[in-house]
């Protein structure tokens, strides 16, 4: 019995050590293969069932994203202006908005091939960019780059750059304008209004 328990504990240890040790590019590749494998087989997702896609993203993708860092990046110089409660609200709302965009993009997936470029990083690096290219015959390839940082719980994505466009910092101008016009609370309100306006079609991304 004791051996069983200790084996169980060991396996838990191994599992958690695994999550920390996986190299950043291997992590992204694992997630992509997983998600695309499911999308290709699931008829509901192919038909555009957003609830099911959201659930998939929730389970497979979100644990590897650092939404606090993403929100801070999008806020830029305005981040220090927000107090702890406002920050929590901002992170939640921004997370829901990004997740919806991400799920929406996934639902348009057809038969693109994702290629990984060799990772340029030194062994001790704690901040790397994983570069991928999405290829579809007849179209110029589109790059998707993942900025990642090393944390105690493994590598986390803090920015996704599609074709040179950062999905995070691209919000900075509108965040800025919103905060100038009506303060941090004004921004929280417009983000949550935006998320609520998308709810009927979208479904379960709010938590």
């Amino acid at each position: 019995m004791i051996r069983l328990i200790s084996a169980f504990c060991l396996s838990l240890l191994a599992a958690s050590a695994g999550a920390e040790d996986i190299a950043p590019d291997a992590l992204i590749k694992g997630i992509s293969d997983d998600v695309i494998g499911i999308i290709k087989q699931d008829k509901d997702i192919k038909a555009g069932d957003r609830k099911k896609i959201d659930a998939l993203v929730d389970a497979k993708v979100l644990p590897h994203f650092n939404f606090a860092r993403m929100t801070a990046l999008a806020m830029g110089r305005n981040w220090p202006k927000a107090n702890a409660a406002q920050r929590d609200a901002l992170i939640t709302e921004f997370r829901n908005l990004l997740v919806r965009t991400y799920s929406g993009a996934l639902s348009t997936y057809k038969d693109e091939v994702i290629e990984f470029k060799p990772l340029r990083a030194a062994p001790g690096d704690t901040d790397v960019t994983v570069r991928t290219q999405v290829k579809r015959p007849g179209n110029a390839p589109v790059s998707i780059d993942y900025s990642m940082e090393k944390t105690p719980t493994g590598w986390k994505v803090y920015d996704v750059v599609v074709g040179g466009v950062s999905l995070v910092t691209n919000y900075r101008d509108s965040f800025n304008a919103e905060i100038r016009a009506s303060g941090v609370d004004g921004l929280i309100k417009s983000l949550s209004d935006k998320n609520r306006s998308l709810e009927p079609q979208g479904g379960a991304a709010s938590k």
Partner: protein
Amino acid sequence: MKRNLIMLRRFSVLLMVGGLAGCATTGGNPDDPLEGYNRAMFSFNDSVDKAVIKPVAQGYKAVMPGFARTGVSNFFSNLGDVWIGINNVLQGKPGDGVSDFGRFAINTTMGILGLLDVASDAGLEKHNEDFGQTLGRWGVGSGAYVVLPFLGPSSVRDGFSVLAVDWHGDPVRRVGDVPTRNELYGVRIIDTRANLLDASRLLEEAALDRYSYVRGAFLQRRRSLVYDGNPPREPDPEDVDTGAQGSTR
């Protein structure tokens, strides 16, 4: 009919000048000193799109089978490859240029006038180049952000390139038979818009303020294209990473 197009271009220029004279508001983005005019033009383009172009593109997508739409896209894409190749040569990338000319030769013959993209299968990758990128490669800055009438987001550099240079490199312009040429223009617009339907729906969902979202995306995208996807990494002065690091919600 050619005169109509020239008229359209003149009208565009008039609209722009009229717009420029009418305002001097700025919203604070240093790349966008003409924001007042640009926002007005953005919503003008938007209403043209909503009223005419988007519905036609949706109808086209609903009616035409997928393989036929792919054929149409391939056809226009093939016509563009020669100009893309010339720009690659101008940018000092003769290898890429030769690959583009090769694509055109292969797809025009074996690909039945470009309807099939057999060159991609043969490993000749499609590129994305235009004269604005060539100027950028030569060191010309993009200048202010400008929303062009009908054509949409651009910059002083890229707008000049599109209206004064790329225009001349467009093979459709050389089609002698006027009705055929106009048909080609029309189909190309609808084909382009149909290919963007998914993207524009995503944009609708993602953006808090569509104008500034499109502006930011355009400026970042063009910068990336000028460097063929590898722009030098700029330090982000606003990355005030306080307390967010390590927390993983």
